[in-house]
C-alpha cells in the first residue's frame, strides 16, 4: 500500500480497540519468566556449547602474538575462534569497527577470540588462559584535543540568512559551550546469541532490534547468501539502539558453531560490554543565540563536535535546532573528529537527546538574560513552518499547547524566577522546563495476516518488541481492522521468515509497523469480501462478523477450512518532504539540591506530549516515563569515564556506570494531547519512545539552576562540578 495522500476516515478511527489503555498481551509471559530471551532457547539447540568472548587489552595497535596452547588444552574446550582461523570475513555496512579484531586492533575490548567449551564455567576459565602480546600504537582518545582537527560532515551546514551579521547586531546575546559525555545503553539483557548450522544454513536466536539489518549484515560478514540466514528474536531485553546492529555475540556464535560443529551460545559478559559494544558519543556543542529585547530570536547558531572511528558517523546533536525555533538567521552544523574509542553509534534519540541537553539550557539562559519567563520565551519563538523553508509546514505542531498545559498542570506560576530562593529544610528547590522535540521518521514496513477457521487472526512480521509494546499495538491494530476482540488475535514477531518490517529504532516502530499491519489487514478484508462475493467497500467487520447489506457471516466461517491469508506493507510517497513531521512536548521538573553536599534529587516530573494518535496510552506512557528516567540519568549521573591515556572506558560495569535506580525516580506524570496526524500514516500516529528523552535532561539542569543559581554546562551535573560554588556553610 502506497501512502502518498493524507489519510481520510478508515477503520482505525473507530477506536474500539486502538487508542485504549490496554494491558500488554505479552505481560503474563514476561511477569512469569516464560518469555524466552536469546540465551534461553534450551529446546531448539541441544548439545549446545558455550562461548566466551575475549576482548583486546589495548585500544589501538596490533596483536604481536597469541598463545592459545594452554586454553586449547584446558578441560572441556572444543574450539577457539580468532581472526586467524575464522576464514575470510567481510564487514556489514552498518558496522564501523570489525567485530572480530586482529591482528589490527581498532578499540579497547574489541573481540579478538571466542573460546568454546562444554560448559559455561570451562569456557570462561579457558579464556583466561589465552595469552596475548600486543604492539600498542598511539591513538587519539580525547575529543577536546581532537576538536580542532574535526571536519564538517557531508551534509554540510544549514545556513539561512546572515548569522554572523545578525548575531553581531543582536541587542541580547548568548554564546555558551556545553558538553555531553560518552554514554552507555546499559540495557539489562546483555547481547546474546545461540547459533546453529544445518549444512550451509545458519539460524541465530538473538537479541536484536532490526531483524533484516541483522540478516543482511550477518550474511554479508560471513559472505553467504542472505536467504541462508535466519534470525529469531521474539523477546529483547532492552536495546535503546545498542542492539540495532549485528554485534560480536552473533558473529562469534556463528563462527564458533561452525568451528565446533555444534550449536554455540554466546552472551557478552557485562564487564566487556561497555568497551566492546557501541555507545552514544560525547559531544561539544556551541550555541549562540541573538535576540531583540522582546525575546524575538534574530540569530541562532548551533555547532556540534563529536568523534568516531574512521568511517564512523557523527552525533547529529544540532539537527533539532534547524526546526525547533524561529529565527531569520541561522547556522547549524555537525563536525566529526577521528577517535580510537569503541564505536560510537545510535543510542535512544541519537542527535536530539544530546542536542536538546544543550539547546534547551541555552534557551533557559537566554530567557534569563532577557528577563523573560522561559516558557514564554519558547512560545514567542514558535514556528509553524520549517524555518529554512516557509513553504514547508509542520504536519502537526502543538509545542505551544504542550508548554502551556504543562505550565498549568505543574504549577509553573508558583516558580520563583529568582534562583536560589526556595528552601525546604536542607534542600534548595527549583523548577525547570524544556521543550521536547524529536522527528517522526517514515520507513516501509510489511506484515502477513492470516485468518483461520476458528476466527483467529494471526499477524506475522519481523517487527520487534524491545519493551515498546509492539505486540500489543499490533494486536490492537489487527483487532480493530478485522473487527475482533484482542482475544482473537495472535501476534508473532522477530523472525526473519516473516515479512520485513520497520523494526525498532528512531521511535519509528509503532507508527510504521502498525501501518504495515493495517495495509495487510486491508488486503485480508478484501480477500474475505471477495470470498463472500461482496464489495469490500460495503463490508463492515464487527464483533467477529462480516456484515454486508443484510448478510452477517462469522469470520471463522468466511475463512473456511483453509483459512485466508494476506501480505502487504506500507510504503510512503513524499508527504515527509512536503511536510515536516515531528513530535513535540514539554518537560517540567522539580529538583532539590542538598545545600551542603550538592546532591541532586528529582522530586516531580511531568511530560506533555503531542505525538499524533496514541495507539495504546498505557504502553505509550511507559515509553515516555522510561525515557524521562533515562534523561534523569543523562542529566545527573551517566558518563562513561574515559582514560584519555589508553582509550579505556574505565567505569565498565553497572556498579561504575551508574544509571538511575528506584530511589532516583519520583512519581512521573504524562499527558498526551489529543492529536491525530493524517499526514503521517493511515494510523495517524507518530512515535513517543524517544520524544520523552529529548529535552528532559535540560529541564533537570534548568531546575538545578533555579534551585541554586548555578549553571553546570558539562554533563552529567555531578556535585564535584559546583560544590565550591554553593553558598558557604553556616
Amino acid at each position, binding site marked *: 500500500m502506497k501512502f502518498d495522500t493524507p489519510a481520510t476516515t478508515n477503520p482505525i478511527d473507530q477506536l474500539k480497540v486502538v487508542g485504549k489503555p490496554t494491558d500488554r498481551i505479552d505481560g503474563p509471559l514476561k511477569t512469569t519468566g516464560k518469555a524466552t530471551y536469546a540465551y534461553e532457547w534450551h529446546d531448539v539447540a541441544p548439545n549446545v556449547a558455550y562461548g566466551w568472548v575475549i576482548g583486546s587489552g589495548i585500544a589501538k595497535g596490533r596483536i604481536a602474538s597469541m598463545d592459545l596452547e594452554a586454553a586449547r588444552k584446558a578441560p572441556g574446550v572444543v574450539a577457539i575462534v580468532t581472526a586467524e582461523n575464522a576464514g575470510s570475513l567481510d564487514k556489514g555496512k552498518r558496522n564501523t569497527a570489525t567485530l572480530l579484531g586482529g591482528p589490527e586492533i581498532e578499540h579497547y575490548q574489541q573481540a579478538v577470540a571466542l573460546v568454546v567449551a562444554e560448559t559455561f564455567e570451562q569456557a570462561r576459565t579457558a579464556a583466561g588462559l589465552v595469552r596475548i602480546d600486543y604492539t600498542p600504537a598511539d591513538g587519539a582518545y580525547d575529543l577536546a584535543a581532537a576538536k580542532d582537527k574535526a571536519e564538517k560532515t557531508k551534509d554540510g551546514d544549514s545556513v539561512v540568512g546572515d548569522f554572523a551579521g545578525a548575531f553581531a547586531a543582536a541587542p541580547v546575546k548568548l554564546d555558551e559551550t556545553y558538553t555531553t559525555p560518552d554514554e552507555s545503553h546499559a540495557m539489562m539483557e546483555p547481547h546474546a546469541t545461540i547459533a546453529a548450522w544445518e549444512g550451509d544454513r545458519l539460524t541465530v536466536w538473538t537479541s536484536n532490534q532490526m531483524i533484516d539489518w541483522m540478516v543482511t549484515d550477518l550474511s554479508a560478514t560471513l559472505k553467504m547468501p542472505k536467504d541462508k540466514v535466519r534470525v529469531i528474536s521474539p523477546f529483547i531485553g532492552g536495546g535503546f539502539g545498542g542492539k540495532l546492529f549485528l554485534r560480536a555475540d552473533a558473529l562469534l556464535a556463528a563462527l564458533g558453531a561452525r568451528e565446533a560443529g555444534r550449536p554455540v551460545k554466546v552472551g557478552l559478559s557485562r564487564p566487556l560490554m561497555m568497551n566492546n559494544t557501541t555507545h552514544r558519543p560525547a559531544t561539544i556543542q556551541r550555541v549562540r543565540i541573538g535576540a531583540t529585547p522582546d525575546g524575538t530570536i534574530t540569530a541562532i547558531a548551533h555547532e556540534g563536535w563529536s568523534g568516531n572511528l574512521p568511517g564512523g558517523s557523527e552525533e547529529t546533536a544540532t539537527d533539532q535546532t534547524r526546526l525547533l525555533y524561529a529565527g531569520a538567521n541561522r547556522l547549524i552544523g555537525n563536525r566529526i573528529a577521528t577517535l580510537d574509542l569503541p564505536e560510537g553509534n545510535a543510542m535512544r534519540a541519537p542527535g536530539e537527546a544530546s542536542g536538546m541537553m544543550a539547546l534547551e539550557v541555552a534557551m533557559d539562559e537566554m530567557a534569563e538574560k532577557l528577563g523573560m519567563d522561559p516558557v514564554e520565551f519558547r512560545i514567542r519563538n514558535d514556528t509553524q513552518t520549517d524555518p529554512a523553508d516557509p513553504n514547508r509546514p509542520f504536519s502537526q505542531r502543538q509545542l505551544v499547547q504542550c508548554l502551556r498545559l504543562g505550565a498549568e498542570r505543574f504549577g509553573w506560576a508558583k516558580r520563583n524566577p529568582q534562583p536560589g530562593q526556595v528552601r525546604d529544610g536542607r534542600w534548595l528547590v527549583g523548577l525547570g522546563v524544556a521543550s521536547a522535540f524529536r522527528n517522526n521518521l517514515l520507513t516501509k514496513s510489511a506484515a502477513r495476516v492470516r485468518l483461520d477457521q476458528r476466527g483467529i487472526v494471526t499477524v506475522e512480521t519481523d517487527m520487534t518488541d524491545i519493551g*515498546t509494546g509492539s505486540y500489543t499495538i499490533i494486536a490492537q491494530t489487527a483487532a480493530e481492522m478485522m473487527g475482533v476482540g484482542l482475544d482473537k488475535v495472535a501476534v508473532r514477531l522477530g523472525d526473519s521468515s516473516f515479512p520485513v518490517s520497520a523494526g525498532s529504532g528512531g521511535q519509528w516502530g509503532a507508527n510504521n509497523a502498525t501501518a504495515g499491519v493495517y495495509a495487510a489487514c486491508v488486503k485480508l478484508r478484501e480477500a474475505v469480501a471477495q470470498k463472500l462475493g461482496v464489495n469490500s467497500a460495503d463490508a463492515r467487520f464487527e464483533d467477529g462478523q462480516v456484515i454486508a447489506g443484510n448478510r452477517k457471516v462469522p469470520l471463522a466461517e468466511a475463512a473456511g477450512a483453509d483459512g485466508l491469508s494476506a501480505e502487504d506493507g506500507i510504503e510512503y510517497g513524499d508527504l515527509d518532504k512536503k511536510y515536516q513531521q515531528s513530535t513535540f512536548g514539554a518537560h517540567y521538573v522539580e529538583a532539590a539540591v542538598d545545600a551542603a553536599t550538592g546532591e541532586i534529587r528529582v522530586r516531580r516530573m511531568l511530560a506533555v506530549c503531542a505525538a499524533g494518535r496514541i495507539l495504546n496510552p498505557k504502553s505509550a506512557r511507559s515509553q515516555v516515563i522510561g525515557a524521562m528516567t533515562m534523561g534523569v540519568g543523562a542529566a545527573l549521573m551517566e558518563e562513561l569515564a574515559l582514560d584519555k591515556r589508553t582509550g579505556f572506558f574505565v567505569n565498565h560495569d553497572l556498579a561504575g556506570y551508574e544509571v538511575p535506580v528506584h530511589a532516583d525516580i519520583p512519581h512521573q506524570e504524562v499527558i498526551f494531547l489529543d492529536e491525530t496526524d493524517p499526514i503521517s500514516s493511515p494510523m495517524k500516529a507518530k512515535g513517543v519512545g524517544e520524544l520523552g528523552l529529548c529535552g528532559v535532561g535540560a529541564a533537570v539542569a534548568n531546575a538545578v539552576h533555579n534551585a541554586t543559581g548555578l549553571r553546570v554546562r558539562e554533563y552529567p551535573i555531578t556535585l564535584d562540578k559546583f560544590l565550591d560554588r554553593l553558598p558557604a556553610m553556616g
Partner: protein
Amino acid sequence: MRYSGDLDMTRRGLLLGTAATAALTAAPFRAPARAATVGETAMPPPATGTDAPSLSPVLSKVTFTVNGQRRDLELDTRTTLLDALREHLHLTGTKKGCDHGQCGACTVIVDGQRINSCLTLAVMHEGGSVTTIEGLGLPGKLHPMQAAFVEHDGYQCGYCTPGQICSAVAMLDEIKAGVPSHVTADLNAAPQATVDEYRERMSGNICRCGAYSNIVDAISNVARREA
C-alpha cells in the same frame, strides 16, 4: 569436618574433566603450590601444562528444593545458583543481567529472603529452599504481584521483571518483619509501607527501561490489598 562433595566426588570430577581432554595426562589432584592467603592477594597460578589438573572441574552433589520440588544436582563447584537454575534446571525466568551483583535481575527468594543468585554458589545451598519467578505464578494463574505488574505496566522489555517481582514480594515481607531501611525516619519504630520505602528498598533492582514509577504503583496496589 566433612567434605560436602566427598573426596571420591572430587576425584570423579577430576576424571570426568580429564576424560574430556585427551591432551592432558591424568594426574592426581594437586593444588597449585601457592601460599595460603587471607587479607593478601593470591596471584593466579601460572597457566602451564603442569598446572593443568587444577583446571579440571570439580563436581559436587547438591540437593535443594526449587519451587517446592526437590532437585538433586551434580554440578561443577563453580556453578552459581543462577546458572544452576538457568542452564541446568532450565528455569530461565531468573535473568542474568550483569552476573556481578550490580543489577538485581537474578533476584530469587532463598529460605524466605531475596538474594542475588549470581553471587552465590549452587553448592552452598544444600538443603535450601529456592523460590523463583516460576514458583510465584504462571500465565493464567498469576501471583498478585505479577498481576499488579501487568495491570500497572510495571515493565517494558521484561528482562528485569522477574527479579523486580521476586524482590518486591520479599521486600514487603521485610517491612512486615520490621527491617528498617535507609529512609526509615525513626530507627526505633516499625518501618511503614510507603512509596519512599519501596523506592529505597527496591533500588537493588535496576530497570533500564525506566518503569520505576509504574512498579511502585504495582507494589503499592498489592500492599494495600494485603494490608
